[in-house]
Structure formats: structure tokens, C-alpha cells
């Protein structure tokens, strides 16, 4: 099981690869998708028609998929803007959205409105029944959508601006203190993996409700793109794990670090599992809701496979790296 160790492996190379070829390009992609989303919205706002709405929806989908690539970067500037929660909390609270719109009295930045903003809120507002007539007949609704989009845009803009100064301290932070950048990367990577498991699959499947499924908990249920989002999220984690850059440049990764530590079995198990998950997702029916209705066992198998792989990530990988699974700074002995 032990491979050849490589004592010259440096974590700072991993952090630089991740920062320059993944984090910064991915944030920029999301920024440009959101910029286009904002301008598409402006065109629709000026001259609403069904065709404009369709291109708005298509652009929303592109941006939402891109968001799956950055939601696990919940540290530093991304955490300061709370991007993962403010852009991606689901299921969205349709009642809160309707109340906000009706009253015109709301603060979208407050924590209580996390589930009334972001991509999931737009899923409801753009894709629910009679969306077109609802939007075009109520000025309040248009204002609300516009505000959600500009808030998302503002948050990604701020994140990117902050990263320009945050970068240098980040790539040098290789210590194993629980608040060091390397630990933050790994801890948030695993946390996102577990959140994905529960929110995208576990809750809708009813894993914690006696296996009584609840499709209302599916992500992006109105548009039905939950399957694409799930795939993108797994793909993003795979890219990070393998050190593949969003800009096509590859480099040192967690996978390489495991190999350098002689943990060949763990490294290849994790590497192979990403591919297995992606295949499992591809073999599902067109949407997660369809899978829930007609092919539930496939979803359960996928859920169990993702669950079981946590052992390799959370115990084998983490203990090989020697980092502490905690999100705060505490004493040990």
C-alpha cells in the first residue's frame, strides 16, 4: 500500500496552483456570467418578451452551474461575502419571496433573506408557473428580480477585488493550524462534499426522514436542472482534488500530496471515485425529480457511494495530511 515518498513536495505549490489556475479564473468566470445575466435582465426589463425571458433563463443556468465551481471556496473573501450561502441556499422560501415582493419592504442582505435570494430564488421567480405573466404584470416583482441579480453581481465583484490583496498571504499559508489556508481549503472541501451529499441527495431522498422522499427539497426544482448542478459540483471537487485549473493549466494537488506521502491506495481510491460518481450521475434520468419518481434505487446507490467515500476523504486523507478537522482555533495536547 505504501508508494515511494517524495519529501520535496511543497504545499505552497498546491496553494498557488489552486489560487492562480482555479480560484481566480473560476471567480472571474462566474463574474462574467453574472455580468451577462445582469445585462440580459436589463434588456428584458426594458422590453419584456418570451424570447428575452428564454435567454435570461439560459444565462441564469450557465451562471448557476459556474457557481458550483466556487461554492466550496468558503474562506477569505468568499467567506466575507458569504457567497456560498447568499447565492446558493435552497430550498428557496417562496412564501418569504412573495411577502417581500408584496410589501416592498425588505433587506436582501439580512441573514433571514438568504433563502429568498440568490440562484434558487431566481429558479422560482423565472421558472415557476405563469412566471412570464407574473413578472410582466407586477413592477414590484421586476424590481425584486433586478435587485437579486445586482446583489449577486456586487458580491462576486467584491470577492474578486478582495482576492487581489488576499492572494499573497494565502499562498504562503501552509501550516497545519486549523485556521491556516491549507487547512481551510481541505476542511471546506470536505464540508462542501458533505453538504452536497445531504442537501442535493440526502434530504430529497429522505435519508433523515425514514426514507420518505420529499421532492420539494430538490435543488432548482422549478427549472429541473438539479442534476446538472450536482454533476458540476462533483466535477468541481474532482478538478480541485486533481489540481486541474479552470483555465486549463494543471499543477500540484491534494492527490499529488497523498502520493508524495506514500498513500497510493487512498489517492487512487479517491481519484477513481470521482469518475464513478460522474458516470452514475450521467446514467440517471433527465432530472433528479424524474429519478426520484422512476429510478430511485440509482439515486440511493449514488448517495451511498458518496457517503462511503467520506471515509477516504475525512479519515484517510485528513489524517495523512495531519490537519485538524475543526473550524476554529483550539488547543490540543
Amino acid at each position, binding site marked *: *500500500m505504501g508508494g515511494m*515518498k517524495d*519529501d*520535496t*513536495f*511543497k*504545499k*505552497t505549490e498546491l496553494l498557488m496552483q489552486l489560487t492562480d489556475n482555479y480560484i481566480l479564473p473560476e471567480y472571474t468566470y462566474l463574474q462574467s456570467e453574472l455580468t451577462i445575466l445582469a445585462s440580459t435582465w436589463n434588456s428584458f426589463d426594458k422590453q419584456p418578451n418570451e424570447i428575452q425571458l428564454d435567454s435570461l433563463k439560459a444565462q441564469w443556468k450557465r451562471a448557476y452551474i459556474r457557481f458550483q465551481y466556487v461554492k466550496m471556496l468558503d474562506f477569505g473573501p468568499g467567506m466575507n461575502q458569504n457567497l456560498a450561502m447568499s447565492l446558493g441556499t435552497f430550498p428557496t422560501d417562496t412564501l418569504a419571496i412573495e411577502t417581500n415582493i408584496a410589501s416592498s419592504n425588505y433587506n436582501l442582505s439580512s441573514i433571514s433573506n438568504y433563502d429568498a435570494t440568490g440562484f434558487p430564488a431566481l429558479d422560482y421567480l423565472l421558472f415557476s408557473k405563469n412566471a412570464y405573466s407574473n413578472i410582466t404584470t407586477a413592477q414590484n416583482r421586476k424590481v425584486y428580480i433586478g435587485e437579486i441579480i445586482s446583489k449577486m453581481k456586487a458580491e462576486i465583484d467584491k470577492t474578486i477585488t478582495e482576492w487581489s490583496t488576499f492572494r499573497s498571504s494565502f499562498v504562503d499559508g*501552509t*501550516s*497545519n*493550524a*486549523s485556521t491556516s489556508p491549507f487547512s481551510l481549503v481541505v476542511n471546506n472541501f470536505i464540508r462542501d462534499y458533505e453538504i452536497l451529499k*445531504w442537501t442535493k441527495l*440526502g434530504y430529497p431522498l*429522505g*435519508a*433523515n*426522514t*425514514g*426514507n*420518505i*422522499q*420529499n421532492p*420539494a427539497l430538490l435543488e432548482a426544482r422549478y427549472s429541473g436542472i438539479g442534476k446538472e448542478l450536482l454533476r458540476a459540483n462533483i466535477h468541481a471537487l474532482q478538478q480541485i482534488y486533481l489540481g486541474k485549473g479552470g483555465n486549463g493549466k494543471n499543477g500540484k494537488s491534494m492527490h499529488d500530496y497523498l502520493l508524495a*506521502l506514500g498513500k497510493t*491506495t*487512498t489517492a487512487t481510491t479517491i481519484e477513481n471515485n470521482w469518475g464513478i460518481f460522474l458516470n452514475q450521475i450521467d446514467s440517471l434520468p433527465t432530472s433528479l425529480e424524474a429519478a426520484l419518481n422512476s429510478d430511485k434505487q440509482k439515486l440511493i446507490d449514488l448517495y451511498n457511494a458518496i*457517503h462511503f467515500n*467520506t*471515509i*477516504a476523504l*475525512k*479519515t*484517510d486523507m*485528513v*489524517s*495523512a*495530511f*495531519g*490537519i*485538524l*478537522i*475543526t*473550524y*476554529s*482555533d*483550539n*488547543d*490540543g*495536547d
Partner: protein
Amino acid sequence: MNRINQYLFKETSILPLVGFRIIFGMLMVIGTLRFLFNGWVHQLYIQPKFYFGFIEGITPLPGNWMYLPFIVLLIGAIGIVFGAFYRVSTILAFISFTYIEILDKTNYLNHYYFVSLVLFLLCFVPANAYLSWDSKRNPSIQKISVPQWTIRILQFQLGVVYFFAGVAKIHPDWLIHAQPLAIWLQAYRDLPIVGDYFATSWLAFAFSWFGCIYDLTIPFFLLGNKTRPYAYFFVVVFHIVTWLLFPIGVFPWVMIFSTLIFFPATLHEKWLSKVATWCRWEKDKNLLNSHFHRNKLITAFVLVYAFIQLLLPIRSFFNHPQTLFWHEEGMRFSWRVMLMHKEGFATFYVRDKNSKREIQVRNEDFLTVGQIDQMATQPDMIKQYADYLYTQFKDSSFQTIQGPLQIRKPSIHAEIYVSLNGRNAQLFLAKKHNLQEKKYTFAPHKWLEPFTTKL
């Protein structure tokens, strides 16, 4: 017995004890302030929904009242520094500190246990009889000498910590595989110049062997008059290195300063006389050395205390190595420091016999991240959590889209995987057991899987 008494009640200078009181009190003040300012009171004792208490019924005070024991501890520690209302101060500090520590096993650290023991001992020794507020107010309590046991017992306690920490290191993982140090040290591979050495295993071996020999021998070198200065040099270097490399808070400083009690009065005289001038504390000129009467009660106390302190660490030697490391029986209160790197992944299930339904528990709904991490590898905490889940789910009902799901008599199951000292994870607890029915006793835990993974 006569020789024991002669030894315990031999007259000796009070100065090392007074120096210890001031330094240890100051460390307590700093440690308590650090705890408060890091927001740990809220994070560890107010935020959690559930606590892994050591003693049933002893639970945190509600909400912000949890700041109270910390304030009491701070006041007690300040009292110790100044030797003010000394008896009350030491008792308050001991009780508040120990109360805090037994609230949650998650936060158990060997050095917290050490602090508890020292505070306990300080309640009994007359460390306020010199250079103190009490003796300024009431000069009649002044003494320049104390019976030797008051100092020896603290030296003994320090010696026990080191020696048994050293004995625990005589273990294949530590000496033959250099684990877990190899895991922890390689993490420093990015350091400039020395990084490459940290990545190699020979440095981990050097650290492991040195650490073991250091722990085993340092108490004896500290006792010898000739070896003491060299020994103390190693104490300082050793603890500063551990302070730099590992997240162990104030512990290295506690040891660096506590071991000063091994030094003779002449050394303490130098700095204590400056403190005395500075505080305008004056020694009673007529003070004479006193002769100490033997006291059977004290002899008994010292012997029983020493016996227990030897027995607690020794108890773990009789355990099968598997029981010790894998099941963690005898791990606590026996100075087994830094011996393990354990990571676990625990999934709990609630089964309901009536509805034949199974619920997978999301641990984050009930525990903090730190609690989940500690619980996943420690059998008594696993059992406590299972019992807690039982109370949470028994006779409960929650909404599903098929109507309410009623749970009458749940059974609690867990599937847990654990990796120890760099080995790949293996099954620790199988799902088949109904944890509600299992008893946590001192007998070997048959419900846990045997340890089979080789390093």
C-alpha cells in the same frame, strides 16, 4: 515510617513554594483571560446543545451564566498571585476550574488535568506565608520555612507527568514508526531551509526518541544539584520547540515555569527579593526557622495522594495495547500526551421498530464540529451520544409529505470508521449493535471491532 516522616517534615526554605505560587497564579490569570478573549466560553460552553459530561448531572450553567465560573477562576487566580485570602482563593480556583473541565470530555486535555491537580495541592500548602497580601495584613502568619512535603509533592506531581509520558512513549508506533510525529512534522515541509528535513522520516525518529528519553529522565536530572542547570536548559528548549510546532496553547509555558520549583531557595531569593521591594512587602525581622511537628493526617494525605497518582497511569499498563489505543481505555488521567492521531467518521442511525423506518442522523444537527470529531473515536462518548439520540427520538414525531412519522421505541445504531496514526481507516463500530442496550463499563468493549490494521 519514621524515615518517611523525617523526610516529609524536614524543614526547608519557603521561597521555592512562594515563587511557584506567584508564577503559577500568573499563568492561570493569563490562561483564563486568553480563554475569555478567544471567545471559547461561548463556543465551548454556551453554544453546544449537548455536553459529554464526566459526571451525570453536572452540566453547564444556563447561557451567559457560564461566564461566572470563569470570573470566579480569574478572581481566584489573582488571589493566588498576591497571596490574598489565599485559602479561599485556591479553593475557588480549584472548584471553578475543575467544574469547567468536567463539563465536556470534548475539551479534556492532559494539561488541564494537571492544572486541576496543582490547584488542588495549592489549597493545602501555606504558600501565602511569605511575600503575600495575607502576611502583610497579618504578619503573625509569616514563615521563612516550610515542611519539605509542601514542595516535594509539587515536584513529585511534575515528575509523574514527565515520567509516565515517557513510559507511554515506549510503544512500537512511537519508537519504530515515529508516529504520530511523522504525520505532524511532515506538515512543516514548506518551511524555508529546514522544510525538507521536516518532510523526511528520520527527523520524526530523532524527535520521537529524544522525546521519549527526555520525558523518562528529566525529573531525575532536575532533582540532581549538578545536573539541574543543564536539565533546565533542555526543559526550555524542549517546550519551546513543542510550542512552536503544535497547537498546545499555554502548556509549554506552564511546564517551563513550573519546573522552577526544582531550583533551590538561593535562586528564588534573587527575584523574590526584587518583587518584595517592588511591592513594599517587609519581612518580619524576628522571624526564626521553625521546627515542624509531624502530623499523621498530613502523612496519610501525602501518601494516599502519591499512591493514587501512581496508580492512575499504571492502570493502563495492564490493558491490552488494543484496548488502550483503539478503545481508549485508560487513556485519560495517565499522561498519555501526543501519542495518537485519530480521525473518525461516524454515522448514526435511528431505527423504529413500529414503522420499520430508518433515519440517518446528521451529526451537525446535534453536536458541534469539535464534538463530532472527538466523539467519533472515543467509545464512552459514542455511547453517551447514542443515549442522547435515544432521548431525542423516543416518542417523537415529525412531518413528512406522507403525514407525520411517529417514533415510539427507537434503537440507535452507528457505523464508525477510524484511522489511527496514519493507518488507513478500518471499521470501529458495526451498524448491527443496538447501542441503547450496550453498557459502558470498565470491561473490554465487545461491541467494538478488533484492531487489525498494520502500520
